[in-house]
């Protein structure tokens, strides 16, 4: 095998020597982006970019050539990633880096970059080769699948937990209510009523957990019933938030069983994402108000408003672009809201950002995300 591949290279070199066209065909036909920088000129200017480079980045070759490739970087590019490239260049070593770049349009994309030094026959560094690939779509898909798996796992775990809780709660409620009528002492009866009440509350809570898991997040059905699906999603997100967050809901709807064309898992993911963002915006001590309403006969609106610091009007579109995150929080993947919008768009819906609730100090206004969905009639 080894021998054969060596022969293959030799054959390739012979053909390349005879037919320079081959190299051109390879480069021009490659779906990956290929770029070459001259290592003998200061600051490594690009000397070749293939058509795929122009297609991916939006820059024409005349705009790219002669410049250092760092023009693809921007505001949210992680400087640690950049310094990895810088170090590899200084050490003349190949490197693989995944970093945030920007197209000419300003649209961010995840660039999987492989950069390698190229040496000439005498062993001198002549160029750097860059092979880039836009992996944004794959990343978004993985992120979505991960979130879905997490929800399903949570559903399964909460189902098992609820089942055990129910078995523990049953004797409490059953036996207290069985014997309560026989208790003559009103003071003791009062005490037992309190414990019965608490046990019933616990059973309700456990049933909510069960509702979450009862096949809801497993079905592949592309329909979510409202308000039930929303109630379940809110119950779930409530469990994820600190108790210092106040969740207010208003699910009063004219019609009862509204149906929207989205699977409940994805729907829950959208709600959870927006609500947890809102909670973070209020530094986990604010109010989040969730409302469900019908409008224009055929559409459903779910609004999620918070009393956090809000988002300036100029930045409101930006929150949906991948990797936009207010720089302070480093823990988010930055994909949250872009995945959310993608999910909603895919089912023919939309999300609008507008003014939310008045801030506690009365000075400013928080943020409101409104999900607009077509209802199934």
């Amino acid at each position: 095998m080894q021998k054969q591949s060596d022969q293959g290279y030799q054959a390739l070199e012979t053909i390349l020597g005879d037919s320079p066209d081959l190299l051109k065909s390879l480069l021009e036909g490659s779906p990956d982006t290929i770029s070459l920088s001259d290592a003998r000129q200061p600051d490594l200017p690009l000397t070749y970019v293939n058509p795929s480079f122009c297609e991916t980045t939006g820059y024409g070759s005349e705009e790219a050539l002669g410049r250092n490739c760092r023009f693809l970087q921007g505001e949210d590019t992680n400087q640690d990633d950049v310094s990895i490239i810088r170090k590899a260049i200084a050490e003349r070593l190949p490197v693989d880096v995944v970093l945030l770049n920007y197209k000419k349009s300003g649209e961010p994309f995840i660039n999987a970059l492989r950069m390698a030094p190229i040496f000439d026959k005498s062993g001198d560094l002549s160029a750097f080769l860059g092979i880039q690939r836009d992996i944004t779509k794959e990343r978004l898909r993985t992120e979505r699948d991960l979130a879905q798996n997490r929800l399903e796992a949570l559903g399964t775990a909460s189902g098992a937990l609820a089942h055990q809780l129910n078995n523990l709660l049953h004797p409490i409620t059953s036996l207290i209510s069985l014997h309560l009528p026989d208790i003559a002492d009103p003071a003791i009866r009062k005490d037992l009523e309190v414990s019965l009440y608490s046990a019933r509350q616990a059973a309700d809570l456990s049933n909510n957990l069960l509702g979450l898991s009862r096949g809801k997040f497993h079905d592949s059905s592309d329909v979510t019933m409202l308000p039930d699906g929303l109630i379940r999603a809110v119950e779930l997100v409530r469990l994820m938030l600190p108790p210092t967050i106040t969740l207010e809901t208003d699910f009063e709807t004219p019609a009862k069983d509204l149906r929207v064309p989205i699977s409940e898992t994805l729907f829950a993911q959208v709600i959870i994402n927006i609500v947890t963002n809102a909670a973070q915006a209020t530094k986990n001590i604010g109010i989040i108000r969730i409302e469900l309403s019908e409008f224009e006969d055929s559409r459903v609106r779910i609004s999620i408003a918070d009393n956090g610091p809000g988002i300036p009007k100029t930045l409101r579109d930006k929150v949906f672009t991948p990797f936009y995150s207010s720089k302070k929080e480093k823990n988010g993947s930055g994909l949250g809201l872009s995945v959310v919008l993608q999910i909603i768009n895919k089912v023919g819906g939309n999300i609008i950002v507008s003014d939310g609730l008045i801030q506690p100090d009365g000075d400013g206004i928080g943020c409101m995300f409104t999900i607009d969905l077509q209802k199934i009639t």
Partner: protein
Amino acid sequence: MCQILLIDDMQPVRHAIAATLRKAGHEVVETDDGNKGLEIVSKKQFDLVITDIMMPASDGTDVVYALKSAKAGPKVIAMSGGGAGIPAKEALQLSTSQADAVLKKPFTNEDLIETVSGLTSN
């Protein structure tokens, strides 16, 4: 008054259900395992068998199946805990469709007594 066999592996749950049934005037035999339950049924006449169908140790769905396959067996109430993540989902559906009634946990004492009298009064 009915003769009832109660099968549930959770002792406190079984105790509470039995206490409720006894207070309503029924005679209750308790056991914690499906196979033991079938053995008891083979020796003594019962009007009704109430069995949990999700006991990890023994399969309550087998009990429902065995009892309902027999010609003149007792009525059967299947108790289920609901929830997902229980592997034998089809078996569960089968046994709930075979049982004369299903009680989903958690149920109230009133649910229990109503279901029992609904099945045994006529």
